[in-house]
């Protein structure tokens, strides 16, 4: 007698049973995203490149922003932005994932965390394509990868766990309060400027004393740590400094705290999703 469908469903047997669903949903999103476009998946490479071009012209050429001595702006930007784009895509698509899967949730039993998780995995797939763009820019600008570049999955995993946690939280809350969809867009805009993507943490040293609090916000912002970590390993040739154990501990703590919080809220809320869809 199989225990899979009894009421005492265990998390792990469920997860194993629904792994194929996760895979199929990602494949479905992938097919639908690139269907009927001539360049198809090439867009995932071209998009970050074009955005990088525009922003480099605006911020480097016109506004003359400096990101540190001897650091190439185009590379600096695209490395940070690629991880940020992963995070922002994962969380903002997860946000409505439970709502849009309402039809399914009402009719069959599926562990509901599959939906936000799937969006995060799909964003990760897209991110892996954008790495091609990152590598291209690095080679063109002469910022060559080193052995340390191979460590890049570490910050990506940290960021992925954090994104999953936040996605669980957002997708659950959105079921109850649809405002979150609009609110989160504003929050993301604010968030991107509080993350060192178009400027560097070092340039903040020049801030007026009354504005020093911004530094603390940046320090409390997990994305600052993930992106700086990601840059430190990918552009090791420029910085020559690997993230310390302390930074690793901070990153892990932030990721796990978010995952724990998100999972807790999600678990509390999921039983009543169906009544609000």
């Amino acid at each position, binding site marked *: *007698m*199989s225990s*899979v*469908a*009894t*009421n005492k*469903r265990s998390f792990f047997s469920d997860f194993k*049973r*629904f792994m*194929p*669903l996760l*895979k*199929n*949903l990602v494949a*479905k999103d992938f*097919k*639908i995203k690139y*269907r009927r476009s001539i360049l198809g998946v090439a867009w995932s490479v071209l998009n970050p490149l074009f955005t990088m071009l525009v922003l480099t012209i605006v911020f480097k050429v016109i506004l003359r922003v400096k990101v540190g001595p001897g650091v190439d702006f185009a590379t600096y930007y695209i490395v940070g932005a690629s991880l940020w784009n992963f995070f922002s895509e994962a969380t903002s698509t997860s946000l409505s994932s439970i709502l849009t899967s309402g*039809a*399914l*949730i*009402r*009719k*069959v*039993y*599926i562990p509901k965390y599959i939906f936000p998780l799937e969006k995060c995995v799909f964003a990760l797939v897209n991110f892996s394509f954008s790495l091609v763009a990152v590598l291209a820019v690095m080679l063109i600008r002469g910022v060559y990868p080193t052995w340390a570049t191979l460590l890049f999955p570490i910050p990506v995993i940290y960021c992925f766990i954090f994104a999953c946690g936040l996605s669980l939280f957002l997708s659950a809350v959105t079921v109850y*309060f*649809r*405002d*979150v969809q609009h*609110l989160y867009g504003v929050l993301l805009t604010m968030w991107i400027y509080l993350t060192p993507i178009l400027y560097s943490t070092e340039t903040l040293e020049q801030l007026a004393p009354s504005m020093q609090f911004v530094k603390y916000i940046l320090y409390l912002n997990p994305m600052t740590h993930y992106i700086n970590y990601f840059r430190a390993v990918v552009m090791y040739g420029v910085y020559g400094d690997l993230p310390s154990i302390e930074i690793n501990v901070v990153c892990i703590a932030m990721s796990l705290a978010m995952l724990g919080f998100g999972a807790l809220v999600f678990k509390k809320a999921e*039983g*009543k999703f*169906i*009544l609000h869809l």
Partner: protein
Amino acid sequence: MINNENAVELRDIEMHFNMSSEKLQSLKEYFLKFMKRQLHFENFVAVDKVSFDIKKGDVFGIVGLNGCGKSTTLKIISGILKPTKGSVETQGVIAPLIELGAGFDMELTARENIYLNGSVLGYSKKFMDEKFDDIVEFSEMRDFLDVPMKNYSSGMVARIGFAIATVTTPDILIVDEILAVGDFLFQQKCEERINKMMQDDTTVIIVSHSIEQIERLCKHCVWLEKGKVKMIGETAEVCNAYKNTKRE
């Protein structure tokens, strides 16, 4: 613990719904109402202290007028809804046939949807590979396999859905009004398949407004009225009593 002879045990199941006169979907509204202490919900009890057992291998019918809690009870048994109070225990794999084709993505082709839907029901890719031809054969849709499903008629969608949902012999099969899909030939085919499952010791739970169908298929029946069990027992007895209900 569930009795070994039972496939399903319901104990004092209650299901309450909030029937708020206006659905609050924005934080601001919620906050305002909360501050003004206007957050009261009208409680609606869809299922009220329902208890019954379904024996393994039984074919069990649920009858009752519209809105008496039939579908809610089915959803509680299949694990889609969590009851507000009471306990549900089930033994074995449940295949819910509640609205066929839930989980189809109309942009995808039938071939892609068969795999997607299989995984929605928790079947592995390898299993689906093995059963793929069976499904296609049963649904008689081979010629349209690579057409996006948005171009299908509703009957065609239902055929594929039924074929996928019944590809295994589940321990418990839940059938909610779905035998009304497809043309009469396909309906006969569906009934044959369900009959075959019954012989294989599958417990079948059927909700239908067609009394003839219930009388033809079921051994035992429960009659629900306004969320409560009105009568439970042999199909003939329950159905006769039910048929004598007068319009109030």
